[in-house]
């Protein structure tokens, strides 16, 4: 019994470098050998709602896509952007992109470059990128009231007047749906507060896992229709879009989030094991101290 106790006490006081190594391995191994750690991905309710909302849109509808994330949160949110663009383009929906974060410009350009060509979509006719404007909530309020005064040119420096698909748009009420790809402030909350809720435009969001607690009240209230919560949300949406594309005779490879879910699963399990070990050690050492005193 004493031996078992000692083993647990030693396990509970591991050097942090060993913990780092084990966490690193738990992430690295599933990425290097995905077949060994393949896990089924089943869409949850919130991801399914997002998918259904987008699926309800019809060909020619207009969707405003807001990019509010950067490189640090790219692994979580960029797969959502890619899956979402696949879904929107296959349904022939017109996409209008804006960025509330300066890094958002790079994210949107990259996402369009990856997807648009696969569906033969033309810039200015099927999709447009209006780029980044500074001002946070002020930009959202401006989009809600007068988008043309805010964006005289697009991200390429082309005059808005010369972009065919901008002729049908004056403010947020001209969009059929708003989707916020958000990693913080300004982001989904501000879209609800200043644009979509006051104007009655349906909206969904894809955000980082850490933001979910902030956004969930709006989702429960119906002000945001569904939520893609972090990388698991992205993976679930990728699966839903993949199935949808398959039903239309299109085959795409599994998205990035799907391939990274095993790594995240293993990392979570390792952290949980460490927490349990730490607590066993805490219990044993506390008892020893009590006996000693």
């Amino acid at each position, binding site marked *: 019994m004493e031996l078992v106790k000692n083993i647990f006490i030693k396990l509970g006081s591991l050097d942090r470098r060993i913990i780092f190594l084990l*966490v690193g391995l738990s*992430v690295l191994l599933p990425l290097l050998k995905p077949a060994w750690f393949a896990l089924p991905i089943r869409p949850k309710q919130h991801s399914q709602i997002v998918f259904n909302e987008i699926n309800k849109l019809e060909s020619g509808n207009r969707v405003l896509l807001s990019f509010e994330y950067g490189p640090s949160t790219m692994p979580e949110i960029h797969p959502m952007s890619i899956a979402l663009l696949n879904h929107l383009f296959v349904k022939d929906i017109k996409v209008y992109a804006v960025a509330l974060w300066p890094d958002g410009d790079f994210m949107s350009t990259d996402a369009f470059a990856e997807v648009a060509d696969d569906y033969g979509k033309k810039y200015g006719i099927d999709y447009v990128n209006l780029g980044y404007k500074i001002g946070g909530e002020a930009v959202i*309020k401006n989009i809600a009231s007068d988008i043309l005064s805010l964006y005289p040119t697009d991200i*390429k420096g082309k005059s808005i007047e010369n972009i065919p698909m901008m002729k049908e748009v004056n403010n947020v009420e001209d969009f059929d749906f708003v989707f916020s790809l958000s990693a913080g402030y300004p982001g989904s909350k501000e879209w609800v507060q200043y644009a979509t809720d006051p104007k009655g435009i349906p909206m969904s969001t894809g955000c980082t896992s850490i933001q979910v607690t902030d956004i969930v009240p709006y989702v*429960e209230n119906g002000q945001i229709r569904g939520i893609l919560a972090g990388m698991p949300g992205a993976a679930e949406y990728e699966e839903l879009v993949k199935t949808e594309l398959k039903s239309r005779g299109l085959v795409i490879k599994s998205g990035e989030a799907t391939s990274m879910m095993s790594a995240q699963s293993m990392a979570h399990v390792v952290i949980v094991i460490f927490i349990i070990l730490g*607590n066993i050690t805490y219990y044993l050492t506390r008892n020893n101290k009590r006996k000693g005193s």
Partner: protein
Amino acid sequence: MFLKRHIPIFIVIGVGLLTLFGHFINHKGIQDFVEKDALQWFEIIASFAIFLGSLNMLKLQMLKIIRKQKNWPYSALAVLGFAFAIFAGFFYRGANYIVISDINESNIIPITEILTEELQLKKPESIPDKIRASEDGYEIPKIFMTQSGAEIIMEKLEIFDVNMELKSKKWGAHLTERGSLFSWMFFNIFNPLSSTMFALLAFFVASASYRAFRIRNFEATLLLVAGIILMLGRVPIGELIPWWVVAILIVFGLGAISAPWIKNRKMVFSLITGGIVLFLGVGFAMGWNQTPPQILLIPVIQDWIFDYPTTAGSRALMIGIALGIVATSFRIIVGIERSFLGE
């Protein structure tokens, strides 16, 4: 005193009242101010704030370098990075592209082959159609950082007797064009550095939770259990955890909660063991192996935590914050709160 104190206060009170009344007074002038002019003012001021922030950052870092303060080489790196970004953003576009026109039909396939081989273009099979469809010349979908890089390709295409033009993307547009100097800096320096910083969090979270996440009291136990359920429930592996593991954990949890009130340890042990045996026995007899009750599935419990306790807690916080904002805004508008003046 008048310029530094009274005028800013008057401006803040005036603009604050106007913006507030704009939501209640149906007057076109006031509505236009609130909905359009004020927002554009804000955007202009916010743009200037970036300049001020940059200058302030430069000043602080330069002072550190000049005074050779602790870790000054990092400051030198920050200034160099800043200078490089300014150079790539304002002085060197590095976003050249080639437009080819007057292409003979018989040359389309050889040109496509050369472009595919030299530039590793995505979806080469679509290039011939794009060349045929282009009216104002075909823009090769590749950005060259230097003119000489583009000229090498142009030399290879010269044999086809096509009209070639070397152009540059517009200032501003060059920033996000994949292949330009600025974009190269973003995707090859900023992007990996930023991702690395964020990824390090995983290691710190693991180490910190191992050391600090302890069952010290009831609240800490609740936090720990909710944390573990969320961590497992959010990922696919949570679905693979069988119902009986959750059943055992529930019995353990109940035992941990009731233990302080039962002094006899043998009694606690017997209750927990008996509880587990009873729970599992009932479960197997009821056929939970095939259709387990929802309450014993980790993802379902995790969804419940998100939908009810989390939502309730977040709402309470949001309402509190909103009331705080109303109170602070009112104090600013009536001139009581002057912290924005540095007081």
